[in-house]
């Protein structure tokens, strides 16, 4: 009897507590920038696609939901011919972002991915590619790499010497 009254009393007290219910979607919750939600592909500071189609994200993905095909532009620059993520399989683990050597693939704090039709959860490159740099600013892979893929000449990088001139006698 006593415990019953105590329960009713506590329940009554809750009427004066701060409300836990959120007015979603009228009021959006705050999610930190590193929250792992919808995946995007970003661009480098020059506005070009960052992804170099190395396939590392696809390889690391535990549910195998990324598939892409590498292609090379006329300047030799490598990019994905298509890039597909099947979000109906994605578990938002973020391993793809960690594996990516170019900061191209990033998870962002958008979790509104639900859909009545699974087929709508297959995203192609046009759905993934954004126009900015995302979370990581200032990095351009082709400036760090040794290859000349239209961004800098061989030996033209900051950490590189000019190419060896084999015909000179002096080292």
């Amino acid at each position: 009897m006593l415990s019953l009254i105590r329960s009713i009393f506590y329940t009554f007290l809750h009427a004066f507590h701060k409300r836990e219910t959120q007015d979603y979607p009228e009021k959006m919750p705050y999610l930190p920038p590193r929250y792992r939600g919808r995946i995007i592909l970003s661009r480098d500071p020059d506005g070009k696609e960052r992804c170099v189609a190395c396939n590392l994200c696809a390889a690391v993905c535990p549910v195998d939901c990324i598939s892409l095909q590498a292609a090379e532009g006329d300047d030799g620059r490598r990019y994905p011919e298509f890039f597909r993520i099947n979000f109906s399989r994605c578990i938002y683990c973020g391993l793809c972002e960690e594996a990516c050597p170019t900061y191209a693939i990033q998870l962002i704090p958008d979790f509104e991915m639900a859909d009545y039709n699974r087929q709508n959860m297959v995203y192609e490159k046009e759905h993934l590619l954004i126009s900015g740099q995302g979370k990581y600013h200032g990095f351009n892979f082709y400036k760090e790499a040794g290859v000349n893929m239209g961004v800098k000449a061989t030996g033209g990088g900051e950490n590189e010497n000019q190419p060896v001139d084999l015909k000179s006698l002096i080292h």
Partner: protein
Amino acid sequence: MAKIQIDGTFYEVKSEKNLLDNCLALGFDIPYFCFHPAMGSIGACRLCAVKKFANADDKRGRIVMSCMEPVVEGMIISTDDPDVKAFRESILEGLMANHPHDCPVCDEGGECHLQDMTVMTGHNYRRYTFKKRTHNNQYLGPYIKHEMNRCIQCYRCVRFYRNYAGGKDLNVFGSGNRVYFGRQQDGALESEFSGNLVEVCPTGVFTDKIFNKHYARKWDLAHTPSVCQQCSLGCNIIVSERYGMIRRVMNRYNGSVNGYFICDRGRFGHEFINSPDRIKKVHLRASKASELLEVDESCTLSDFMGKKVIGIGSPGASLESNFALLNLVGKENFSHGISEAEHKLTNQSIRLLQSRKVYSPSLKEIEKSDAILVLGEDIAKTAPMMALAVRQAARSESIKLGEKLGIPEWNDYAVRELDQNHQGPDFIVTPSATKIHELVEMAGQAFAKAENPLIITGISGGNEDILDACSTIADALKKQGKKLSVSIVFPECNSVGLALLDGLTLEETEERIDGRQKAEEKIDTVIILENDLYKRASKERIDAMLKKCRQVIVIDHLMNETARQADVLLPAAAFAESAGTVVNNEGRAQRFYSAVPLTGQLKPGWSWCNDQWENLDQVVNALVDAYPVFSAIKNQMPDADFRCSNEKIARQTMRSSGRTAMNANISVSEPKPPQDNDSPLAFSMEGYKGSPPSGLIPYYWSSGWNSVQATNKYLDEPDGHVRNGGDPGVRLFDDIDKE
């Protein structure tokens, strides 16, 4: 043999091999770069360090390069001493100092020996903060891409290209930190073996340009064991597929045939499969005057069969496809589709090889010959890998001389310094200027001292007199107690297999179609299987022949001249899309498997010719019943029901990616993987991944060894024979010998 102690355990090792070679054979993971099992050692990279102790009391020991160390009875070594590990790591750090930050865009990535060795030695943090040395790249032709920044100066490329394969236009330039591997100036590589640089180079300096056009990582490719169909040698290859498309061809090790290498024709010649000229659909011609048009309905060959049918097979098609056609039209109506001259010479050659008089050597055995006569055949063109084998055989005298002086064969640089390009007693002779008795005389002189004499000839350049001379020489040698080896180059990948079936020549076929001799046998329908007749006889002759047939049915994969003449054109699966057996010049029957699941109307030739047979095994059963000469194929090759630990063998690697996304654009529900009824291989990443029987190895991979260097893990010893069943293929002529 010698007994040595490695890491505290005693092992029996081969004294004619160096320490590294022996350790690798025993399964030790010693990192290395410059050593190559087929090319020996030069000690350039310093990575293969081990510690050698003077005796049991010596606790300090000294670091030696295992690839330059002969094994001596009682030797004590350590492969995992802390000093050795630190030494290897520092060597790697040095090699990496100038290495570019390229892995994500490097075609070698994921199958890079440098990546593997970096992980193996434990070097993982860059301390060198100065600027990197860079190099300009060269244009090396349509097949090979050059990215010199990635070089680690192991010298394997020039040792293969120049020393092993006799190329002239690739060399090493500069000195010190500027050492450069390339050509004197931009230009296409001249060697017909240049593609091997892709596999020989442990880094991504030389990569496959054809593969680059539709690149995929090794871990993403589905790999299938196959056999090259570009010449009669039957080199073993791995054909790789991704997203339903053939992507590349790599070498598949066969210790009796091609070893570690294949020629460029085999490596780069597969692109016709992706050609826009491929026939993918049934084409029909409503009447003789109308055009050949694609149709969508499925149909079978029996819809078009006439009353009097003649079938023309092809030495370029599999045994099964040829037999299925023979079976359909009957022995007396089956034609080999080759000229009378070629037919006659081929049959005579096979009789010679089948006789006990001479021995039909494998390519590996050709390498071990010590006197060779090449008669009338331009083997560099018609059988490139045989030319490479002859090149190795030409060193036999130098190697013997080295052994006499105590320089083992593996000490490659020393032996080559010793021989100064000396070549053994090889003779190249053209038959036109030579009479038979001169030939016999010449052979007598050349073979006088030889232990393994060999005569090489071929169908394209040889003649009957040469074959007769071989018999005569064999008889003479027999008196001296020696057996003559004869290797004959045939024109196509299955010339030998086809010749073991009955069949007419092209001339006889023309006569039959002409119907002048026996009017009652006049042919109304001709079925041509994967054979472009216009390449075999003049246009007038073939035109005349085809015009006389009421109906021309062509089963082929490319829109060639013959296909254009068809009234009914049926799309055949190319070699990489179907399974079958081909018999090489040595008489070795080898099985190839389909690398990509068949789609649409494509069917293998044998399946077009007989819709009763459901899989390859049923064709082989019927073949063996009709031609017992092939019984070894049925007895020794695993059939489609074969399983490893109750599983099919997976074509895909365990890291294969994109399974739930690659078809998601079509349907988000993942489809069931396509079935393969013709082989024990699965189009899937699920299945057996261990070391399967030798003929069924889809790809080379071993923990820590992602590059092609993992090949050695599948062999009884480096440069040895394939484990688990021996070198792939069954020799048909040996069986005849035994009977």
